């Protein structure tokens, strides 16, 4: 008993962060913070497969997590309704001073703020699978976000060797929007039998120097994530240019099935 408690108890007086949301993003954050001097609480319905580190602390229930967190990362992209639910619970449980850094690629900070009790501490982030491996994150603010909160968010990323870029609060922000449109276009081409998957990927890497082929990139990101951004862009703008390829919808179901049954 004593042992178990000792294991779970955070080393004081260290900082504590909380992360919740889509599993690929949770994992990326765990990887990122696994060697950092913070306790990272993971709030999720099942224990994600991440490296065993004493500073990564899993909990299925929010009640078991301290209230005085420095920052909460809410990283749900695939279900805006789930995101709102998570944010509501977080606001009920955690101190109102805690910074909330919430993924804003499939819903804006503005939309999320409409449901919030304390929207002044909510910051948007371009949390998207595979992009989190890189050196820069995009941040955005809602209409009520305070400058202090934005400054604090910038410092948190600076501490962990990431540059930040402040962009306008729009669906997809910059990189996820461009990337998802590229992947959607590649999937349209695949669906129309313009070329094979391998040839599409080879062509884009050799012909235009892309770091990854769009189809393999989509696979690594998860087609459900790509679909979530395309659907949100389509709904937000009403423009047909953002309609998801029917094959993308099928591939997204594949991603969901794979993550559910093959892990």
């Amino acid at each position, binding site marked *: 008993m004593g042992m178990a408690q000792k294991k779970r108890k955070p080393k004081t007086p260290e900082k504590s962060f909380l992360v919740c949301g889509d599993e690929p993003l949770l994992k990326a954050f765990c990887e990122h913070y696994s060697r950092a001097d913070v306790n990272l609480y993971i709030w999720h319905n099942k224990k994600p497969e991440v490296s065993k580190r004493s500073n990564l602390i899993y909990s299925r229930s929010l009640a078991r997590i301290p209230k005085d967190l420095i920052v909460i990362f809410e990283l749900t992209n695939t279900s805006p309704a789930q995101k709102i639910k998570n944010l509501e619970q977080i606001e009920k449980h955690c101190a109102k001073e805690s910074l909330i850094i919430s993924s804003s690629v499939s819903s804006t900070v503005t939309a999320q703020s409409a449901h919030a009790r304390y929207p002044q501490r909510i910051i948007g982030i371009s949390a998207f699978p595979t992009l989190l491996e890189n050196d820069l994150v995009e941040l955005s603010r809602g209409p009520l976000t305070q400058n202090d909160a934005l400054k604090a968010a910038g410092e948190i990323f600076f501490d962990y060797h990431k540059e930040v870029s402040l962009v306008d609060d729009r669906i997809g922000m910059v*990189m996820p929007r461009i990337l998802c449109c590229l992947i959607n276009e590649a999937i349209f081409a695949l669906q129309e039998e313009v070329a094979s998957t391998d040839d599409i990927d*080879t062509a884009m890497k050799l012909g235009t*120097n892309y770091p990854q082929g769009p189809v393999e990139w989509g696979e690594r990101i998860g087609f459900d994530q790509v679909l979530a951004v395309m659907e949100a862009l389509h709904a937000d703008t009403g423009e047909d240019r953002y309609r998801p390829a029917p094959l993308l919808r099928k591939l997204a179901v594949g991603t969901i099935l794979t993550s559910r049954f093959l892990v």
Partner: protein
Amino acid sequence: MANVIGIIGAGTMGSGIAQVAAVAGYGVILYDIEAPALDRSMKQIENNLAKAIEKNKLTAAEKETALAKIKTSVDFSQLKNSTTVIEAAAERLDIKQGIFQRLDDLLPHESIIATNTSSLSVTVLGAATRRPDRVIGIHFFNPAHIMKLVEIIKGIETSQTTISRITSLAKEFGKTPVLASDTPGFIVNRIARPFYGEALRLLGEGVASADEIDRIVKKSGGFKMGPFELMDLIGIDINFSVSKSVYEQFFHEPRYRPHPIQQQMVDANLLGRKTGKGFYEY
């Protein structure tokens, strides 16, 4: 009969393709309507080969052998013994159709007529001949002697034998061929559209500035170049004309719609590096 590659048009692309074919050991007949263009082309090839020697990619003897393989001519009938002709003339349908008709009359029955077009339909060019099964696209990327990718484009009548022969040829040229059906923009010029199109929209909507978008695309996406520096490098006018061409050929599919910023930059003659100013100043 020796394997001779005919090349039509001694511009940048035709020269690059002639060089690649000669280095691969093929006899080359390089044809152009203007003699000075042929002279310029041979100088360009010599320079490129000299650079290859500097980089230890070629010996002096190999350079001479390659150069000796290339014969230039302003006489169209000299192409008559080519097993394959690669057309790299101006990107205009009427010009290319005329060339394809003349080639069809001149060449042996088995010879393949290939086009290096980046934007015209291979099927339309095939229809200008009596051998659409032996008409195919072989799209090199600029600079052709360096870029590894070659798009092989099958028109609706192109035969499997023709595809196999051109694919082997591209491999012997040291290239990586990919196969595409004859659709607007083929693979690269189509799938790359959103890279520019979305970046322009983000700029137009004020989501971020051009240099900030470039910074994000490089540091968050891992791309070597941002969309705006790339448009400046390609030429904003060239990029705009590819955008318009794909948009028109897809009958105004909104995914390919060009952006008014492109039109405005072209109107102001702000075309990128070549005019000293585009999205950036040089």
